[in-house]
């Protein structure tokens, strides 16, 4: 796979089919894999956090409380935000995949970072949690560079730039809404809205609803 591009401050979305190399690209950006050719230049990046796709592989604590502590975050705050109060002494591996993902993302997003890489953050989450995560990412905007690697098509946050992996290469589709016309993985709902003559400003549910309202007057 080849990739060329500059990621500036803001939220970036990297889309692509399952197995196209999104996770590999995330691991390369985090510095875990070496490049066969070329370089990665990091300007002003002092801290980088990668959220792995499978949350159970990030578990290092024997209890939920220990797991929060291993991230160096306020346990009570995380338990409150994830609805896991009363389960702090349970093993993180006894939580459902969705609960564990929620806990993992809450711990990751509570960190201070210059570069945040989220590998498939929406997997295992229900619609409500996906929407909450989008709000959380939007809230953190301005804190550095956030790159979301996902094949999610329905619930997405407002982003500053869209990229896609196509034909084993990373393609810069540009900024929304112009990017929607170059993006091969554009969600079906946006295709429908464009066909109706109303291009949404961005990808968030609010933007889609606003475009929908314009159709119906």
């Amino acid at each position, binding site marked *: 796979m080849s990739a060329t591009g500059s990621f500036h401050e803001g939220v970036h979305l990297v889309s692509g089919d399952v197995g196209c190399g999104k996770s590999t690209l995330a*691991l390369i950006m985090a510095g*875990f894999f070496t490049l066969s050719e070329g370089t990665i230049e990091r300007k002003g990046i002092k801290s980088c956090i990668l959220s792995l796709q499978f949350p159970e592989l*990030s*578990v290092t604590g*024997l209890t939920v409380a220990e797991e929060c502590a291993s*991230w*160096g975050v306020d346990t009570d705050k995380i338990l409150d935000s994830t609805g896991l109060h009363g389960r702090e002494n349970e*093993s993180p*591996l006894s939580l459902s995949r969705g609960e564990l993902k929620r806990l993992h993302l809450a711990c990751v997003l509570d960190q201070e970072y210059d570069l945040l890489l989220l590998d498939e953050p929406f997997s295992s989450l229900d619609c409500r949690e996906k929407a909450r995560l989008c709000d959380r990412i939007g809230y953190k905007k301005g804190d550095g560079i956030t790159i979301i690697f996902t094949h999610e098509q329905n619930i997405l946050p407002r982003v500053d730039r869209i990229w896609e992996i196509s034909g084993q290469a990373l393609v810069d589709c540009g900024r929304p809404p112009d990017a929607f016309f170059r993006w091969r993985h554009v969600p079906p709902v946006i295709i429908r809205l464009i066909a109706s003559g109303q291009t949404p400003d961005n990808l968030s549910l609010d933007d889609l609803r606003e475009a929908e309202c314009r159709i119906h007057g």
Partner: protein
Amino acid sequence: MQDPRIRIAAAAVLSLSAFISLHGAAAVFLWWVVFTPRCRLARRFPLVLSLVLMIAFFSIVLEIFGGGGLSYFFRMTVILLTGMWIYDEQKSGEFLAAGVWLFGQKTGFELGMVAEMGMQSLVSVAADLERIRMAEEIKGISWGVRSLVPAGLVLVHGALVRAEDNAELLAVRGYQCGGTLCPKFLTSTSDIVAGVFVVVVLIFSLVPVSEFFILYR
């Protein structure tokens, strides 16, 4: 070595030869030097080193409390090298093909499938371990003795979940016993030569060393 039948049989016989006697282990080591692509092991050097260190630990304990630790260390290291060789050479589906060829479509298929699942599980565990170490690096935890318990729990949990998924998949597809497979094998001259020398190694390991070295008597 191309033919999995010769390779599997060679690995079994070489392990047995190394286990039977010290001079047998020396002969197996010579066989390993001559007939295997040793340079591939260099890629797995950290893993080989950690396993050799583990064997060394038990050898020292054995030497102190019962004697024979050095012999144990050498024989187990040679068995480890043989194991690494077969693990490196093995391709997906070869155990199944060899099982069906040896024991038929019912028992052979079952045994081959179990072996394939075992190999698949090993590959998954290795991949999981790599991700666990990445997660620890992200959290700023250095790999050590304290990591072993949580990492072990995650690995066992992952293996159990995968086993359950496989069992469900087989049940859903109506699998009961055996299957149909027409295995095909490629046998090169070098496979036959290596196989013949495996038999020589076995015979050598069974014959007392004093039969070869008259001065030893």
